[in-house]
């Protein structure tokens, strides 16, 4: 009997302590189906995927693969059942060659008399990469030589290397550039043609509607609904995800350049080798300045350089306040001057995930909190963090809870909110809404808007054009390390016109 479902899960349950992360989750995926999975942060999507790919074990329920009962104990089990997974925000083993990374965990297939045939492995890896058209990688080089996006592509190659019948992609598109996205779509298309299935998770609602056949929506650990993609619009999806009606647009609704004439930050001829060259611009008081570009346009490095984390080879950054022009020396100096930075990689660059909410919130403000003899009063710290938690509606059990236990959106709120102290005049935000659900997104935008009105200047670096278009007063488009065009809000910008410059 042929089975029309490739994968079926029945009443899966998973608890983390008292939290019911997956509550009677049932999902069936047909052969040749491209399924989208969507939900807010913390709705249980990642838990479901971890269960399917054997990273964690279910508490109760059943899974079937091709009609057979399926109980993966380890990720290796999943590979052996031809399930390929690309997990969100993980990456590769930096200390091993790219080729080995692709086959790690299954190296024994190259075993020749107890020794691994590396030549054969590298050859297989290159052939595999070129088969899927994923680009030419020097497979014998260490994975640490790759950029974030290249790593993601290798991860994809790794998932494909098990020749999967069922491919699971968790938030892969946010990390990769447009050209690679197109490649990904074509791979998905190819899967469909071969009668294989894909489960795709993304926060990009338009994308998910465009490329999937059906979309399953999860909320609070429960599957809310599964609908045909062609019947859906982003607004319906949003409503289903959040469970209530969201106002039509969470972006700014004015179309004017609203900022004062005072320049607060001036960037002159900034150059960082291999990333960008001769970048100059001024940032005004109360302005939201957007910076966009393709993945290797150098936009993220520009942000890091302005904050002083990367030392430029040439050029300088001036902080201007009341006719004083101060050259920003490094990140320490920048913070002292009142420049804040919200990094792209929350868990690795921004937050101490094994520390309390309190300490994370107080981190940039410690020097403001300290009294005579450098005394930091614990009560002051508690007060500040309670205030931030209340003001920003951060869902934490208490301020002493570990960050690890919070959802991505709440993490990002902390990452962002802690810079909202009285000293910060300029805030550099790198992908402020990456991997964050719509509710938190809307919240962050509204806070940005509010802060802008108070006179805060924001540099907003992002891969997502809609949010830049929605929020920025001015938008710098970068290409291959150079600023190629500046758009003004008043003169209007559309995705098409920006894209044209970017590509």
């Amino acid at each position, binding site marked *: 009997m042929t089975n029309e479902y490739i994968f079926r899960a029945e009443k899966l349950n998973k608890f983390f302590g008292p939290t019911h992360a997956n509550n009677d989750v049932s999902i069936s995926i047909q052969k040749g189906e491209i399924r989208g999975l969507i939900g807010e942060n913390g709705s249980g999507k990642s838990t479901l995927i971890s269960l399917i790919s054997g*990273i964690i074990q279910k508490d109760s329920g059943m899974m079937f693969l091709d009609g057979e009962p399926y109980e993966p104990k*380890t*990720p*290796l089990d999943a*590979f052996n059942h031809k399930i390929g997974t690309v*997990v969100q925000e*993980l*990456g*590769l*083993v*930096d*200390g*091993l060659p790219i080729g*080995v*990374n692709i086959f*790690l*965990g*299954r*190296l*024994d297939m190259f*075993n020749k008399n*107890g*020794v*691994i045939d*590396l030549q054969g492995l590298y050859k297989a890896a290159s052939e595999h990469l070129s088969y899927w058209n994923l*680009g*030419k*990688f*020097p497979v014998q*080089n260490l994975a640490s*030589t790759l950029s974030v996006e290249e790593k993601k592509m290798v991860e994809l190659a*790794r998932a494909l290397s098990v020749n999967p019948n069922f491919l699971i992609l968790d938030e892969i598109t946010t990390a990769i550039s447009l*050209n690679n996205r197109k490649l990904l779509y074509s791979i998905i298309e190819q899967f469909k043609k071969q009668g294989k299935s894909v489960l795709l998770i993304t926060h990009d609602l338009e994308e998910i509607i465009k490329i999937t056949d059906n979309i399953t929506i999860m909320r609070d650990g429960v599957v809310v609904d599964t609908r045909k993609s062609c019947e859906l619009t982003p607004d319906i999806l949003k409503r289903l995800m959040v469970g209530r009606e969201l106002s039509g647009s969470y972006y700014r609704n004015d179309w004017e350049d609203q900022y004062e004439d005072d320049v607060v930050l001036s960037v002159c001829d900034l150059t960082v080798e291999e990333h*960008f*060259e001769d970048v100059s611009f001024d940032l005004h008081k109360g302005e939201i300045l957007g910076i966009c570009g*393709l993945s*290797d346009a150098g936009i993220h490095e520009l942000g890091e350089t302005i904050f002083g984390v990367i030392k430029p080879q040439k050029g300088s950054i001036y902080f201007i306040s009341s006719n004083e022009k101060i050259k920003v020396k490094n990140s320490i100096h920048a913070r002292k001057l009142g420049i804040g930075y919200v990094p792209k990689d929350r868990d690795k660059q921004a937050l101490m995930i094994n520390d309390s909410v309190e300490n994370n919130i107080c981190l940039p403000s410690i020097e403001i909190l300290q009294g005579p003899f450098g005394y930091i009063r614990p009560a002051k710290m508690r007060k500040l963090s309670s205030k931030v938690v209340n003001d920003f509606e951060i869902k934490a059990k208490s301020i002493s809870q570990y960050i690890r236990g919070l959802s991505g959106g709440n993490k990002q709120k902390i990452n962002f909110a802690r810079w909202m102290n009285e000293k910060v005049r300029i805030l550099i935000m790198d992908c402020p809404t990456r991997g964050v659900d719509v509710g938190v997104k809307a919240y962050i935008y509204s806070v940005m808007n509010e802060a802008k009105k108070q006179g805060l200047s924001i540099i907003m670096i992002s891969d997502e054009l809609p949010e830049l278009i929605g929020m920025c007063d001015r938008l710098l488009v970068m290409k*291959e*390390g*150079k600023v190629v065009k500046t758009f003004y809000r008043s003169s209007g910008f559309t995705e098409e016109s920006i894209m044209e410059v970017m590509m």
Partner: protein
Amino acid sequence: MKSVDSEKSYSLGKFQERRFLVSRYDIKKLLSVILIIIPYIIFNIFTKGRFMESSNILSILVHAVVPAFVAWGFCFIFTSGIMDLSIGAIMILACIVSGILAIKIGYFGLILGGILVSFALEYINLKCMIKTKIPSWVFGLGMAMIYEGIGALYGASQLKLGKQVVSLGVTARKLGSIPWIIIVLALGLIMAYIIFNRTSIGFDIRAVGSNREVAKMMGVDVTKAIIRGGLVGSVFIGLASAINESYAGRVMPTTGLNSIALIFIPLAVYLLAQAFEQIFNLTVAVIISSVIVESLFNILTILGVPSGTWQQVAVGACVIVCGVLAQRHYKGVVK
């Protein structure tokens, strides 16, 4: 900056540039070999050719064998993030047992005793460490105390009989002398190189050492990898013990964590090798740094530099300088 039109060839161009970097990398390798050799030639002139005498080079190699084997053991144990300080105490026990067995059944006993003891004790260590989740630092210190205590008990029991701890005398001494010791060194290098670079044990342990979480996701059984790697390492430690016993003829037990002093030089060798890792393969780097350290002692002795003081200062300085040189362009986080 780069100016290539299509994105595809753009990314290709980038990789080609990396390939160019690779060849620069080879030049770097060559340069560092030269950098290591030049001072040796200079020293040779200073020592009136005595340093480069074949017999002296051989004797340096002989001295480098035990630290190299121990450091290879570290490659498999420490790389996965286990800092086991009880290895010194394990070595003492392994030496004693291999000595006892060697007297009874010869070379077979010598090697078997060393490997068996270090294998068994390391297995106990790793199992308990993983089971109890005690940080390896503390666990190693605690186990070092326990193993030292066992060694001391044995020493005391021998003393009661009017004997010292087991001494090989003339039996089973060939393993610790030329040419066997050199052959064993070569075999050890091949073994370490192959296991570390060409087997799933090696790759798994490197994956776990590099990024435990990712390795787990990629289907590596972390616990198994650590134990398998640790056991391979323990074989090297066991071999080191057997060679040491055969080389020195007798190893005394000690107390009060003094056994840890036994692994300071191998540890320095291992850390030095890690510093060279960007240029040489780790297992090869082990032997290079082991020879560097031992020849440093040798040269300085020949030059008449007082031992116990300036020689140690020179070794310490060498370790720091090599560390600094190796990390020159490193940008990441260092603990």
